[in-house]
């Protein structure tokens, strides 16, 4: 089965619900090595995303991603706003005009997201940022394509997220801490993991995968 706009909308609703639930946790993570607003920023952003995407009906998945990205850019601020925003906008450009897409196509779109995050954030893998979830997870999706095992993807995403604990931050606020950042999860990696986990839930629920 193919992924349609409605699935993406459901995904965003689930992200919104999950982020809201984990707001305090995300903020706590950010208090440890940042400035303690990541939960606040993300809930503000996805609340607005939901409002926006409920106003329109979308035939074009690309347009939907684009709108999500624009809302995130203009409502979140901080580091996560432009990064998540760029990720969705870039993915939207790839998916422009498509009413439905395969998991493969989604993987290609995410590859553009990853490129966008890297360019905007001047970051690379191992810098202890959201990229440490986005890049490997995207690669994983692309490698497995339509034969993707969703439960395995969830574990994989979580592993990547957990892995940020060991890293020394090179980018973002946590970088100011140098070695003192080691031992803490990166808040953006955790919210990114939420994003991919909720995507997986939708794919499972809606029987959008082979499995």
């Amino acid at each position: 089965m193919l992924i349609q706009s409605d699935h993406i909308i459901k995904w965003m609703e689930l992200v919104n619900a999950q982020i809201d639930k984990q707001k305090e946790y995300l903020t706590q993570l950010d208090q440890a090595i940042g400035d303690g607003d990541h939960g606040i920023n993300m809930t503000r952003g996805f609340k607005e995303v939901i409002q926006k995407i409920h106003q329109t009906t979308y035939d074009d998945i690309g347009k939907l991603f684009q709108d999500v990205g624009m809302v995130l850019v203009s409502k979140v601020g901080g580091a996560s706003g432009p990064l998540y925003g760029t990720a969705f906008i870039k993915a939207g450009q790839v998916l422009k005009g498509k009413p439905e897409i395969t998991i493969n196509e989604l993987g290609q779109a995410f590859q553009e997201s990853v490129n966008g995050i890297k360019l905007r954030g001047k970051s690379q893998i191992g810098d202890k940022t959201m990229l440490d979830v986005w890049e490997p997870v995207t690669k994983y999706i692309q490698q497995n394509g339509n034969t993707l095992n969703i439960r395995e993807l969830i574990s994989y995403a979580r592993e990547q997220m957990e892995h940020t604990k060991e890293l020394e931050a090179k980018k973002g606020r946590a970088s100011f801490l140098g070695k003192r950042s080691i031992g803490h999860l990166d808040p953006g990696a955790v919210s990114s993991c939420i994003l991919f986990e909720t995507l997986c839930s939708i794919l499972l629920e809606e029987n959008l995968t082979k499995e």
Partner: protein
Amino acid sequence: MIFLKKLINNPEQVVRDMIDGMVLAHPDKLKNLPGTNVMIRAHAPVQGKVALVSGGGSGHEPSHAGYVGVGMLDAAVAGEVFTSPTPDQILEAIKAVDTGNGVLLIIKNYSGDLMNFEMAAELAEAEGIQVAKVVVNDDVAVENSTYTTGRRGIAGTVFVHKIAGALAEKGASLEEVEQVANKVIQHVRSMGVAFTPCTVPAAGKPSFEIGETEMEIGIGIHGEPGTHRTAMASADEIADILLSRILDDMKLSPGDQVAVMINGLGGTPLMELYILNKKVSQILKNKDISVYNTYVGEYMTAIEMAGCSITLLKLDDQLIELLEAPADTIAWKN
């Protein structure tokens, strides 16, 4: 309903309420661009002048709107508390103050600020506006490196506003204004210390925990952890700790002239800042560094955090002239 011990109505509305209260208090100096968190000079745009736009998260008051006015900024963009403003807001600010002479963006070195201001600059350039950017990174608590985000921008930013603003006011070109801003950035260094955390209204609890007799050396202006924690010390010892880090980094020579800023982070009273300044003055005198001017007060705060930062700016004739040039803003008047 239980309220924080803060003068607020709704934690989600603090920035809106603050901006409204600010414009109501200073209608002669500021106006708010409708529908935005942008504040511009009451008489903006000023024709024939390069425009200066700065901003960042809220919670650093009087930064940044306190420096909007003749001789300093043309616009300030306020983000949510401790959160960089978004590109669309920054773009509105740029468009509101540009008069065809170009706009200088003064950015503090944080990933968030950089990215949002960069996106705004790209959008403005796409609309044909000439934009230059400078990035302030005066905080010596953080090691500088091209592989990392590098040093943070803190109170030294205010000197950039003042000096670049003065040159712009004289009718200099965008390139010249950018140049002098970068010169200030090259010559300004700061370091801070915190005794208590601060509370972001929407978070509702203190940004960190710290023992009854501890202080955090090298604190950031968002309650980000500093270089290390140590036992609370005397004002003289604190002056020593902060200043020696700054001086190590600056490598001043005897006979050099500096401007000094003793900046309160929000919860530390003026009395204590002056006590600190006594020792700072003495240390500099002993090193034969001459203090041209001292600024003591709250310039770049971290909500209600108790603590302070020390900033040194190495001066030359040009910087002195621009530092002394007229300025008429809420928080800086010459």
